């Protein structure tokens, strides 16, 4: 979907590269690294302050005797659907490190952006780069490109092959209408294909059958945040359900390390629909959305001579994104099912000067699943994708060629074999794909699941996955005037490398899940990942006059070129614990440890990203204080992270930080709900100081009023 942010990212890379190049060529000292001064951290508040006395817990929900109601009245009751039984079931037999964020988790978090929700997932590092950008990764390589995680919305890929990454600020939608978010850490390429190297995030919206009626919400916050959304769900005839929705959002700026307004506020408007038709053996989903986003990018004015961002020029970047998706599932018999999904997605970037660029994605996927001999469950499928772009119109030419139309196609085969009934399963599969830059790629995996009883399961997996080079890495062609020596002008350039191969990962994983008691469950995963051919940026210096010529005359004194230069290991463990302390007091806890070998410590951050922080913690507490009053709090803590400058030299650390949120929801009546939340109660802190244009979130309070009819 939203590609064009990438242009901003491209600019940012360029700036980074240029900064690095200048640093080298002008032999300036590394004093510039001083510019990121850690903000003083506020001592951690006691997050247990809200923990209630277990004895004071109010007597759970309704004491009404429902059996006294007539059948008609019973059918008319509004229920709070938890569907946890279904979630747990899908988790237990998974042979990968999977975590599901449910609608209940979303409501209990008080969060408003999809990326922020991912903090509750063990293994995930979610860094707010600035008010309108996020960097989300699992298992290392944290960068604003996030080029090793695949993100899907109802099956539609929002991974931008052009720059390699995800624009999280374009993924907001009505959180109420999200059914669940499934997060799989580790390679998912055997099913999902290239770029699912470190994980797959599936955002799944609700069937419109269960979003009937009116939903309206309005939010106002202390940092200039405003959001309002409206949805209506209805029914046509017996089988056709629909919903239509609109949302407008406006989010205030973060602050700079010196406490100034970072001028990075943003806003977006969207309107969309979803229809679902359910027939005996077929179901058909059609959904679409139109969205316009406007993102302030304050530090765009980079001065090549002073190496400073003036920060007083605010570039309004306007992105428009439209998509339409159709998904048809046909049940052939109890044991076989086929599906066809087709989508089209267009992204336009409309910069302030009205010079636009366009990215189109067309994708078609076919899948078929059937039982064979009672002990094989076979799934196979095929996919075709065309991504075409047109950059012939931007202010400065970025790519050679300026227009491209790139096809990716392939197929996969997966077989889950029951070795011992209800006990032991072996899954083997492979995906074969033809990609535009690297030709044929194959991504195999083998997975073993052992379920000694219904409370314990143990799994192990070996898989290979690839990340294919992005269009930026292949085709970028950008240069900027550096300095003049006498009559000759010298340039620094960022040049694509058309000889790149794919990055490879071979991953070994194990996991264990257990229900210790009915209210206490534990999920443990461990991984050891070997990376090969990781693409990093090389800085090449030339003596003045000896470098390659630029297209407009003069020659390079420095050139930045990607190459498959790095490799190494990243390993770690991820733990998730869910404990229902009482019927009304529930807790969840996640802990992540990451380690890496020394070669991963010096990976340049432009393409590859930073090494992971060693420790990440997340804790959540949810208390039903009364049947209509809920208190929630959460705390997320990230260990100090090394910062590398654009040339890969370690220049310091992002200090550790905590994010503490606290809020309550009061259901005033059957239809009306009021929530008040305090967010980032620990105070302003930098989460991504190593990235350009980074700014710090600050403490805020918001109130939200919601009606459901």
């Amino acid at each position: 979907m939203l590609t064009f942010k990438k242009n901003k990212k491209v600019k940012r890379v360029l700036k980074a590269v240029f900064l690095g190049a200048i640093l080298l060529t002008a032999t300036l000292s590394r004093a510039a690294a001083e510019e990121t001064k850690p903000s003083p951290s506020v001592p951690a508040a006691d997050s247990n302050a809200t923990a209630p006395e277990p004895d004071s817990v109010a007597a759970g929900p309704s004491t009404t005797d429902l059996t006294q109601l007539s059948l008609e009245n019973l059918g008319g009751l509004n229920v709070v659907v938890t569907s946890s039984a279904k979630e747990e079931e899908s988790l237990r037999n998974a042979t990968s490190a999977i975590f599901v964020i449910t609608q209940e988790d979303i409501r209990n978090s008080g969060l408003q952006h999809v990326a922020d929700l991912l903090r509750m997932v063990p293994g995930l590092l979610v860094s707010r780069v600035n008010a309108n950008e996020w960097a989300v990764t699992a298992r290392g390589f944290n960068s604003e490109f996030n080029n090793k995680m695949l993100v899907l919305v109802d099956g539609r890929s929002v991974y931008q092959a052009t720059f390699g990454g995800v624009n999280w600020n374009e993924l907001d939608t009505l959180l109420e209408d999200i059914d669940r978010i499934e997060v799989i850490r580790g390679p998912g390429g055997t099913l999902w294909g290239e770029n699912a190297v470190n994980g797959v995030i599936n955002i799944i919206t609700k069937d419109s059958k269960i979003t009937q009626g009116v939903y309206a919400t309005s939010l106002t916050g202390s940092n200039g945040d405003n959001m309002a959304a409206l949805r209506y769900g209805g029914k046509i005839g017996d089988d056709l359900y629909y919903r239509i929705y609109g949302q407008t959002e406006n989010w205030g700026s973060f602050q700079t390390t010196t406490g100034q307004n970072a001028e990075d506020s943003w806003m977006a408007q969207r309107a969309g629909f979803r229809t679902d038709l359910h027939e005996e053996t077929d179901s058909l989903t059609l959904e679409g959305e139109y969205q316009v986003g406007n993102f302030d990018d304050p530090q765009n004015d980079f001065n090549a001579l002073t190496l400073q961002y003036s920060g007083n020029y605010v570039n309004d970047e306007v992105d428009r994104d439209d998509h339409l998706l159709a998904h048809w599932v046909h049940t052939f018999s109890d044991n076989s099912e086929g599906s066809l999904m087709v989508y089209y997605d267009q992204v336009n970037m409309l910069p302030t000067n009205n010079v636009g660029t366009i990215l189109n994605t067309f994708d078609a996927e076919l899948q078929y699943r059937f039982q064979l001999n009672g002990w094989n469950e076979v799934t196979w499928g095929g996919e075709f994708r065309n991504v075409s772009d047109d950059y012939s119109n931007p202010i400065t030419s970025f790519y050679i060629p300026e227009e491209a139309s790139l096809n990716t196609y392939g197929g996969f085969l997966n077989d889950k074999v029951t070795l011992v009934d209800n006990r032991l399963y072996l899954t083997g599969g492979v995906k074969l794909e033809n990609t535009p830059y690297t030709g044929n790629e194959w991504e195999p995996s083998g997975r073993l699941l052992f379920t000694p009883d219904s409370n314990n399961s143990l799994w192990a997996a070996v898989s290979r996955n690839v990340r294919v080079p992005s269009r930026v890495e292949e085709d970028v062609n950008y240069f900027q005037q550096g300095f003049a020596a006498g009559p000759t002008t010298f340039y620094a350039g960022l040049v694509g490398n058309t000889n790149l191969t794919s990055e490879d990962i071979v991953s070994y994983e194990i996991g264990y899940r257990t229900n210790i008691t009915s209210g206490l469950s534990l999920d443990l995963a461990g991984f050891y990942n070997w990376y090969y051919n990781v693409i990093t940026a090389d800085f090449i210096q030339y003596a003045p006059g000896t470098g390659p010529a630029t297209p407009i005359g003069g020659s390079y004194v420095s050139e930045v070129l990607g190459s498959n230069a790095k490799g190494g290991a990243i390993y770690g463990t991820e733990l998730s614990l869910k404990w229902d302390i009482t019927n009304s007091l529930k807790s969840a806890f996640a802990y992540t440890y990451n380690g890496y070998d020394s070669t991963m410590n010096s990976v340049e951050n432009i393409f590859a990203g930073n090494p992971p922080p060693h420790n990440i913690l997340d804790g959540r507490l949810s208390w039903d204080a009364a049947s209509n009053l809920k208190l929630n709090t959460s705390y997320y803590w990230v260990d100090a992270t090394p910062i590398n400058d654009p040339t890969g030299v370690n220049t310091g650390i992002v200090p550790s930080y905590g994010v503490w949120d606290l809020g309550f929801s009061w259901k005033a009546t059957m239809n009306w709900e009021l929530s008040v939340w305090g967010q980032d109660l620990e105070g302003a802190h930098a989460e991504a100081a190593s990235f350009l244009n980074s700014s710090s979130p600050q403490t805020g309070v918001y109130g939200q009023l919601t009606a459901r009819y």
Partner: protein
Amino acid sequence: MKKFRRITLALVLAIAFPAWGQFSEYAVKAAYLFNFAKFVQWPNGTFNSAASPIIIGVLGDDPFGGDLDRTVEGKSVDGHPIRIKRFGAFDVTRVSQLQKCQILFISYSEKDNITEILGAMRGTDVLTVSEIEKFPNLGGMILFDQEGQRITLAINPQAAKSSQLTISSKLLQVATIYKSE
């Protein structure tokens, strides 16, 4: 002014009786299970005596928490007290025990075994109830479905009939009826 007072009253009522607002999904489903005991007639000979219990079995993971026990506690239908019996995951060797239930709730965790379970229940006088998708299509009797924030029922009367169960028209009226071709 009248209108204002009505709104005030409604608000006061809503706050005073919050339980009137929303119910947990499984409290409602538990109430339905109790109603099934009332609105389904079992064939003669199902009960040994007039005081024999109506047994509601839960097969697989129990999603009710304590809701089901609370709902049926101390209740009886036509003199038959109601008992809850929990079975773990489906086990072929325990089919005879499942067949002694009057109502069998098949939990979502048994999704993969559903064909086998329904095969084992065929021809017995057990009312099968589940929340597994397409349950009536597979030969199950009552499906808990969801529409908006409401729990709805889909019933396959044919399946009930072939097990000699009579479902009251009152129950059929509030359900979607599945007809096999």
